[in-house]
């Protein structure tokens, strides 16, 4: 008996040491491990002591509860029902008033929905358009514009429209492909001068940046759910959950040799949504 009492007392004493260690570790800037060790010992020894106390120093006891709280007896139930019905009948005597009351409550409910509108600002343009415009120069993440002579064949670069560096929906991948690789559709023939092609970097599956490139097979890879897009064939998806090709940005080379957009993307970029045709 006394041995048990001593054991429990020891646990609580160790807990005191743990608290002291935590305080000291805090005061001395010793870092999370020492602070955590102190707190762990303080809490753990306390828990251990209490559990030991419950197990060994309090006689085990079994009590029996009878389940007689519910259901209530028959009379009680029917009286409850009667009381409810009585009230309803009283209210319902003025059937006309009930209807007006419901109308008023309904109107209040509908009115309360209006402020929701403020929580969801201007739905619309952002989903359909990016910041690319006719003549917008392609610039790198540091704002430096790209010249047609800058990229070696086979390389890849993330670009933005001039003035909108870091704009999430305008992020675009610029690639320079060797001649003959790109199987451009007829209507996109003049979108890719000197082997330069540009695709939206926003994955058409769930919007992650399509950040990986397998240069040997001209494949873009989305790290989020591993969709693979075939650059040579208009960036159509060839595996993974993405169902749509990455939209292509029509490019041109300006007179001064800089790359620029012919227009915005010709379709909404990124993941699909209901209103998207």
């Amino acid at each position, binding site marked *: 008996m006394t041995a048990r009492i001593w054991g429990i007392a020891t646990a609580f004493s160790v807990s005191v040491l743990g608290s002291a260690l935590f305080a000291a570790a805090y005061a001395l800037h010793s870092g999370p491990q020492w602070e955590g060790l102190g*707190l762990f010992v303080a809490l753990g020894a306390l828990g251990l002591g209490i559990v030991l106390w419950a197990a060994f120093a309090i006689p085990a006891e079994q009590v029996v*509860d009878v389940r007689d709280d519910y259901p209530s007896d028959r009379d009680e139930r029917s009286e409850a029902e009667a009381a409810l019905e009585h009230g309803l009948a009283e209210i319902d005597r003025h059937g006309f008033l009930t209807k007006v009351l419901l109308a008023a409550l309904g109107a209040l409910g509908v009115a309360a929905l209006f402020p929701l509108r403020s929580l969801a600002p201007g739905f619309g343009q952002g989903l359909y358009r990016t910041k690319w415009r006719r003549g917008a120069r392609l610039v790198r993440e540091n704002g430096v514009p790209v010249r047609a002579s800058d990229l070696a064949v086979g390389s890849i670069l993330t670009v933005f429209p001039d003035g909108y560096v870091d704009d999430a929906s305008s992020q675009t991948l610029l690639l320079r492909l060797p001649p003959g690789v790109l199987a451009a559709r007829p209507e996109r023939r003049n979108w890719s001068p000197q082997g330069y092609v540009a695709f939206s970097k926003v994955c058409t599956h769930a919007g992650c940046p399509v950040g990986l490139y397998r240069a040997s097979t001209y494949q873009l890879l989305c*790290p989020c759910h591993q969709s693979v897009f075939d650059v040579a064939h208009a960036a159509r998806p060839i*595996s993974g959950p993405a169902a749509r090709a990455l939209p292509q940005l029509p490019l041109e080379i300006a007179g001064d040799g800089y790359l620029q957009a012919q227009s915005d993307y010709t379709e909404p970029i990124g993941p699909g949504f209901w209103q998207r045709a």
Partner: protein
Amino acid sequence: MIRRVVLALDDRLGTAHFMRKALRKAFPDHWSFMLGEIALYCFVVLLATGTYLGFFFDASAQPITYNGSYPSLHGIQMSAAYASVLRLSLDIRAGLLLRQIHHWAALVFVAAITVHMCRIFFTGAFRRPRELNWIVGLVLLILALGAGFTGYSLPDDLLSGTGLRIAYSVLLSVPVVGGYLAFLFFGGDFPATQTIGRLFFTHVLVLPALLVAAMAIHLGMIWRQKHTQFRGPGRTENNVIGSPLWPNYAMKSVGLLFAVAAILTALGAFFQINPIWLYGPYNPANVSSPAQPDWYIGWLEGALRLGPSWDWQIFNHTIPAPFFAGVLLPLVFFTLLFVWPFLERRITHDGQPHQLLDHPSDVPWRTGVGAAVLAFAIVLTFAGSDDVQAKIVGISVERLVNLYRIMLLVLPVAVGLLTFQFARELRARRNALAEAGTRIAISRTDSGGFAEQPEKDARRP
């Protein structure tokens, strides 16, 4: 002294009757009944640690250029929110410890809730009269998932920002109202400056308040209905046998609170979690590969990866792929869970109240269905990190995805049938033993031999 308090309270509120009964209330002892308590105590730890974090967190998307104490990020643009979590982690004493405890507590919280739910399911504790508490419990699970996801997203690091981006696209995919929903939750087109403030308010006020309210209802109903119990000597549908609340059960439970807190502290102290300074601030054009969410989001991540690449065009409208895997699947999953008690009653035609629990092998078909659903969720969870596995095993992700798709269809069926068969055999063996026990008893005869004799009061186990 004690006498005076009891009398003073009873004079004013008439508490003596309640107190007398409450303090002697019976709490059955079984290890599996601790699971819900563990969840509750994780929540206590979350509140305690989260309150400290909240004083240092700056819920602002304001861009700043970092020049704090972590040289590797000097000169980098980041949100004030990310910078405040950096400061909390690297400059404020005990900040990192409490942050890591908070995160570990969130992981264990959801784990404890999930295992607790499995206990309820496999023992039939959800049956009449406890269907309502099954529903409240599911609400608690959903709230906990929401609290975990919003908390995970607060630091505005590269990993959590990617998760938000995906969540936004999943919301966006909902037919008809998706765009409005996404804008409503995020406060504009992604990435919107309002998002962090909303997440913060939701995470520290809305969801914890709802959690507290739902927990109060949950525990209140348990108190009123009294705990279920497993079959055993003396235990019937009309009683509960267990330790009295005061002092035995209360002491043990307080001990458990400190034990849970201690274990979470040890995890937070010695196992690094979410080192956001290594991930860097969120930048919509970057993504880290491989990107892993917290474990309880894994099944959704897996569903998005295995999901079909459908993009349905209907009357000039689009239903995109994330809808099927990210919205429809969880919707079906949770609906099934919500209606299960009523579905089972339909199937078994058993509308009787049950206060005695089933052993999982008592009802093989239910146990089989549960095992199949678990297998389904586990396959999805594993598929959520298929890129990492593909790298380790050395096969292409494409092949692994196909493998997982097959497993997703085959494994649940196989696991369900095997479990069903196993449970049936277990039950048969137990019944045989029980019957044997009722038939024969052997006693020593005077002459030293053995004799069978009929036993009247043999117990069924």
